[in-house]
């Protein structure tokens, strides 16, 4: 059986950092304040204290302490809390890429989908956002209302991955 563990992470604050105007100046202000650049599309950056993962062209998902971000945006964007509606499920072990192909449509087995990459897709009718933490670990951000169902789907699929 391909080695794989599926675990639900505890709830944690999650925000969206959205820019609607002057992206370049906001990017400069951000880098000056936080010490790393706003990640490109499909990438993530930062540390456990503050990590930004980009799933959309003008919106970054923020893990950690987002209190400094509103000032950086001022009138060019907005920070909004969304953590209550999202469950983070961690997939670790060598089999996570194969598991994500089950009921999926996104090429999670592609070598280009490596550590630091992010992608949003649909798995078993559920809109999930994936973030590759390292070569053997991927975190899925799943809508709360669908999370029990998807967890069950993954646990069942994990049983017959090897065939």
């Amino acid at each position, binding site marked *: 059986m391909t080695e794989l563990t599926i675990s639900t992470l505890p709830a944690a604050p999650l925000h969206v950092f959205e820019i609607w105007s002057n992206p370049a100046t906001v990017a400069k202000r951000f880098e000056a304040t936080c010490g790393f650049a706003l990640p*490109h599309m499909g990438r993530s950056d930062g540390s456990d204290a503050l990590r930004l993962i980009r799933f*959309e062209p003008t919106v970054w998902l923020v893990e950690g302490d987002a209190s400094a971000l509103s000032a950086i945006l001022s009138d060019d964007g907005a920070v909004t809390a969304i953590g209550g509606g999202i469950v983070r499920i961690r997939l670790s072990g060598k089999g996570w890429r194969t598991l994500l192909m089950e009921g999926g449509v996104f090429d999670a087995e592609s070598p280009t989908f490596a550590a630091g990459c992010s992608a949003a897709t649909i798995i078993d009718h559920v*809109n999930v956002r994936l973030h590759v933490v390292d070569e053997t670990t991927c975190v899925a951000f799943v809508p709360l209302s669908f999370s029990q169902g998807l967890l069950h789907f993954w646990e069942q699929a994990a049983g017959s991955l090897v065939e």
Partner: protein
Amino acid sequence: MMRIPCPHCGPRTQSEFIYERTLDSVVPLNAPTEEAMAKLFTRNNPRGVDDEIWRHTYGCRAWMVLTRHRVTNEISGCRAIGPEALS
């Protein structure tokens, strides 16, 4: 299932996208009623190429204009639109 070249995410399977309407049927906010209703209620519906608005709803949530042939499904263009097209 088509493979749509999302300008932000690269080629992705069509199940992540949802079709909205054709580009020429966008009803501008304060358009005169006659023009607004003509755009809302009529389509060229060609048996060939048209510019269509799709959204990468289950991906990067961005909107895009797809130039697609409705018989062969050949996609000759897919461009992001609006301020969302940031670097």
